[in-house]
């Protein structure tokens, strides 16, 4: 390990400690990039430190002294040193040693020996058959689960990690942070096993795949700065106003899994408006593409809320990442075309739509015009027909009325004639009636005259008779009439009573006498 990288690791560690103490994110103290530059230039005074980009006056005042001390502590010798007189406690000494050992990160390849699994850790030996060397290793079980590698005796492995003295046990061990398989055969088997497992878990199910918008604008690009894939992708993406957010990751090696998982997670946590994530790298051996066949990356893609497009390796390379991805691009170039082709073709589409609607619209306008004209013609014809039929009806009505009138008139005349005819008859009847009346009248007059004569004659006769029977005449002849006191004519002697006074009337004068004697 070079002095520069040792200094970088040391600065990082101290920086993280400061951040934890202040309860802020490490980059808020100092960014890795700044630390890298410090490690590279190794300034010895504040003025030199101030020249480094990212070291503003505030940071200089806050961390300047601490940075220079760290550099100095490493400058005297590459390793921490102590005076020979210093006495450590055991714990202090082991901490001191671990401080030296921790930056010695390395990747070691070997064959797995004895494997023991405990609660949180798995212990295993890594063997070197040629040299008969043994490295005791341990790995946190949660990390081991992430790699998707089953540790078995005889398996050839690459492990990444750092040496460590186990404080409580006093032995030397290697803390494994990453595991990679070695050998095409093993990798193929692992690939098939993972494919089967994820397929059963529904990771490749078409219905679980997220749809990508037809016209993507915001793209999250996950690849390595140095990869040809990045250039290929950007070249074939064309210029369509894309916004590309590039997240630099390692795309090969034991540490690339963490990078890629973090990148996918980062976009999902910080930039959900990115419409698509592009995960890409160029071609390589099965071993170099191992990261894309890892369960951790598969899970990260599967749980990403942003759809993922892959473009990994050559045309024929199939990776687990490709199978899980929402859209599979066979190469970086293909991935770029998936995003850019819709933009490339849309001009044609727009032109077609334009032509189409203009032509249909104008055809329809002509159609409307024609229909309008036809309609006008139709209306005029209809109107004319209607007027004509009305005229006809009026004519008919007139004729009808005239004929009715004529009929009425005829009937009136007829009635008049009938009346006149009848009138002669009535006149005759009246005339004969009058004749009859006058005859009757005449006969009545004649009869009445007769009767008058008759009545006159009879009356005369009556008079004569009456004259003859007049009592005064009798009296003149010498007869007298006797009355009693009450004026009653006495016709029989029996009507008289003795001593009664009676009156005797004569033709001239009267005399009263007393009854003396009655003879019957």
């Amino acid at each position, binding site marked *: 390990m070079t002095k520069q990288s040792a200094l970088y690791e040391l600065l990082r560690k101290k920086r*993280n400690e400061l951040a934890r103490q202040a309860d802020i994110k490490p980059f808020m103290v100092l960014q890795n990039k700044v630390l890298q530059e410090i490690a590279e230039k190794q300034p010895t005074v504040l003025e030199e430190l101030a020249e480094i980009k990212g070291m503003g006056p505030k940071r200089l005042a806050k961390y300047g002294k601490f940075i220079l001390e760290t550099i100095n502590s490493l400058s005297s010798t590459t390793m921490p040193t102590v005076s020979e007189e210093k006495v450590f406690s055991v714990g202090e000494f082991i901490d001191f040693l671990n401080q030296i050992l921790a930056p010695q990160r390395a990747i070691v390849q070997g064959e797995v020996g004895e494997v023991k699994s405990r609660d949180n850790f798995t212990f295993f030996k890594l063997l070197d058959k040629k040299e008969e060397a043994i490295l005791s290793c341990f790995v946190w079980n949660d990390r081991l689960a992430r790699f998707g590698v089953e540790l078995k005796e005889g398996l050839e492995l690459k492990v990444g990690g750092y040496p460590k003295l186990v404080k409580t046990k006093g032995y030397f061990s290697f803390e494994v942070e990453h595991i990679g398989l070695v050998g095409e055969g093993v990798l193929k088997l692992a690939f098939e096993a993972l494919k089967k497992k994820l397929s059963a878990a529904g990771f490749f199910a078409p219905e679980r795949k997220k749809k990508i918008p037809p016209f993507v604008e915001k793209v999250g690009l996950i690849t390595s700065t140095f990869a040809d894939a990045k250039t290929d992708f950007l070249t074939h993406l064309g210029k369509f106003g894309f916004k590309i957010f590039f997240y630099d990751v390692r795309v090969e090696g034991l540490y690339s899994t963490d990078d890629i998982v973090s990148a996918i997670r980062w976009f999902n946590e910080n930039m959900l408006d990115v419409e698509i994530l592009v995960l890409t790298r160029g071609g390589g051996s099965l071993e170099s593409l191992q990261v894309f066949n890892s369960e951790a990356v598969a899970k990260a893609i599967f749980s990403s809320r942003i759809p993922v497009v892959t473009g990994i390796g050559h045309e024929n390379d199939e990776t687990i990442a490709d199978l899980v991805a929402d859209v599979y691009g066979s190469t970086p170039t293909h991935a770029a075309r998936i995003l850019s082709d819709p933009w490339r073709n849309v001009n044609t589409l727009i032109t077609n739509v334009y032509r189409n609607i203009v032509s249909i619209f104008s055809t329809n306008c002509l159609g409307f015009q024609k229909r309008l004209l036809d309609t006008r013609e139709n209306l005029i014809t209809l109107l004319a027909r209607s007027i004509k039929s009305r005229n006809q009806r009026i004519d008919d009505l007139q004729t009808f009325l005239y004929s009715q009138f004529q009929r009425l008139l005829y009937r009136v005349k007829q009635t008049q004639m009938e009346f006149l005819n009848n009138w002669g008859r009535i006149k005759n009847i009246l005339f004969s009636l009058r004749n009859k009346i006058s005859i009757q009248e005449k006969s009545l007059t004649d009869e009445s005259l007769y009767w008058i004569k008759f009545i006159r004659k009879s009356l005369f006769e009556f008079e004569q008779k009456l004259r003859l029977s007049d009592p005064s005449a009798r009296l003149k002849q010498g007869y007298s009439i006797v009355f009693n006191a009450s004026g009653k004519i006495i016709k029989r002697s029996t009507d008289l009573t003795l001593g009664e006074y009676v009156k005797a009337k004569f033709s001239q004068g009267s005399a009263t006498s007393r009854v003396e004697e009655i003879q019957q």
Partner: protein
Amino acid sequence: MPQDEKFDFTSAIAELEEINRWFQGEDIDIDEGIAKFRRGLELIKKCKERLKKAENEFVEIKKEFETEERTEEPEE
């Protein structure tokens, strides 16, 4: 789509395709046809304007890897 609303290319294209389909249908109402025709031309104009904005933007994400701190000692 009101003028002040952010122009969304995807939905504009979708609407254009819908208008196109509509025009291919039978019995086109003249008033609706005029409205759709105008809307189509407006969308086409907007889409073409968007297509003129060709240059891509490129932003590199600055990120931090946080180192995991594990303190438990492994016991075999």
